[in-house]
């Protein structure tokens, strides 16, 4: 019976695959016939000789720093905001606060960064400010949820013991809970920063500054050579941030 069910499932999947192509009326074969391959090849050729002129490299340098700053400041702000929201979300201020903040955190992270960026461009205008705000909002939702889970899983006894010496809640938290949960928070924040570097690069597509905006513009102007340079810069940036993040994780999270 199960085999029949699995077979039916397989057929259903294959049918869906076929239907999706049919629905889109995709003419993939058309892509490979007539003039199209030649045109695409000529388009692609433009990328094979990246432009390395000094002026462009300087702009790319600036764009890279902008992207880096966007992701770093965004992740930093998001960590602070996320931690503030994680406290009620972990249930430390009662059930109502927990439900409300959990809902808020879910809303923040359900909306993709690009959509946030488009909204922020409307609110704050073009430029990296919109990108930073977008990353902050989305990432606080993600980090807030991760931090809340970390807080829920950490033992409450050290902080409780400090409360018994008459300490205020803030001090008890900082002396009792934070030292234990700190490596996890840092690990999550570093991981999100790695992700945000990739996102920061593309938020520029909706006008939020950085390398993404440069890429969008050069592609719109059909300047493939410049575009290729920007793409290379993006890849390099991602690689460097991954390396740094790995090092930081080893140094402070595992050794700690």
């Amino acid at each position: 019976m199960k085999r029949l069910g699995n077979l039916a499932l397989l057929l259903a999947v294959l049918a869906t695959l076929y239907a999706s192509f049919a629905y889109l009326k995709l003419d993939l074969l058309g892509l490979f016939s007539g003039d199209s391959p030649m045109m695409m090849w000529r388009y692609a050729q433009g990328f094979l000789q990246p432009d390395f002129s000094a002026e462009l490299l300087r702009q790319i340098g600036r764009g890279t720093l902008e992207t880096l700053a966007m992701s770093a400041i965004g992740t930093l702000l998001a960590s602070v905001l996320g931690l503030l929201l994680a406290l009620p979300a972990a249930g430390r201020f009662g059930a109502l606060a927990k439900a409300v903040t959990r809902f808020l955190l879910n809303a923040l992270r359900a909306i993709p960064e690009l959509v946030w960026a488009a909204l922020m461009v409307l609110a704050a205008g073009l430029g990296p400010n919109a990108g930073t705000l977008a990353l902050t909002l989305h990432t606080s939702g993600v980090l807030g949820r991760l931090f809340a889970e970390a807080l829920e899983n950490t033992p409450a006894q050290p902080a409780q013991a400090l409360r018994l010496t008459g300490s205020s809640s803030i001090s008890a938290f900082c002396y009792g809970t934070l030292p234990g949960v700190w490596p996890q928070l840092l690990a999550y924040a570093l991981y999100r920063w790695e992700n945000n570097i990739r996102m920061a690069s593309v938020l520029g597509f909706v006008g939020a500054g950085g390398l993404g905006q440069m890429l969008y513009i050069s592609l719109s102007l059909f300047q493939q050579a410049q575009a290729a340079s920007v793409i290379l810069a993006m890849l390099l940036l991602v690689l460097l941030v991954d390396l740094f993040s790995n090092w930081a994780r080893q140094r402070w999270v595992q050794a700690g």
Partner: protein
Amino acid sequence: MSLRQQGLRLIDAGLSYADGKVALSGLNLSVAAGESIAIIGPSGAGKTSLLHLLASHLRPSSGQIELLGQAPWTLPGRQRQQLRSQIGLIQQGSALPARQRVVTAVLAGKLGQWSTGKSLLSLLYPLDAEGAAGALAQLDLADKLYQRCDQLSGGQLQRVAIARVLYQQPQLMLADEPVSAMDPVLASHTLGVLKQYARNHACTLLASLHAVDLALAHFSRVIGLRDGRIVFDQPASCISPADLAALYANEQLQAAHSPAVVAPSIPRQVPRC
């Protein structure tokens, strides 16, 4: 009457847990300021519950409690916190965060007496490292000042927890098996340190001990606890072997009902230090 001259009182106090299990019942206890008392009894007798009750951690389900001349559960929260800053509880197992340095762990004793700003600043740079060193020196741990808690043995951690309470300088000290991880010589020495503090600062001291000989040797007044009730409350010299036999009779190795609060946060084996 100032806080200094007050002891503590329990009037027909009882404690039950949410699941209905009765931990303590019918407790009548009167302790004058500056007294040192040992609490002994079999496992599961309720020694830890009693100490947590006296620390104002647990609220009595019946009866009344007076600590340092005040009824803690009639006070508003802020004043109860102020009262608690005068009460030092040394918990069973140590409640110290693994990654924290010893100096910060000890300084945390005065969190109830410092302002929040000072507390947070001290987290970055210890503001009274000398004071912490002084407290640790009494327990021969001054050289561990800047080490991390997870680099210490179980017995050393216990002594750091004691140092924290010494640094706190409370008027009422409650010690739950403070020397359980120490060899007899060190245990005796450490109890001596606690008693000296109590003498010098007119502090009321109650310590629960597993080793009856230590209790009888160091404390002039001993309370025997069994099944949540006080079986005897006598000067040490008046306790006979028959009393002790009755207290520990049929001590079985069943798992005692552990109150929710006392789970050790760092799941260490407690080695001899």
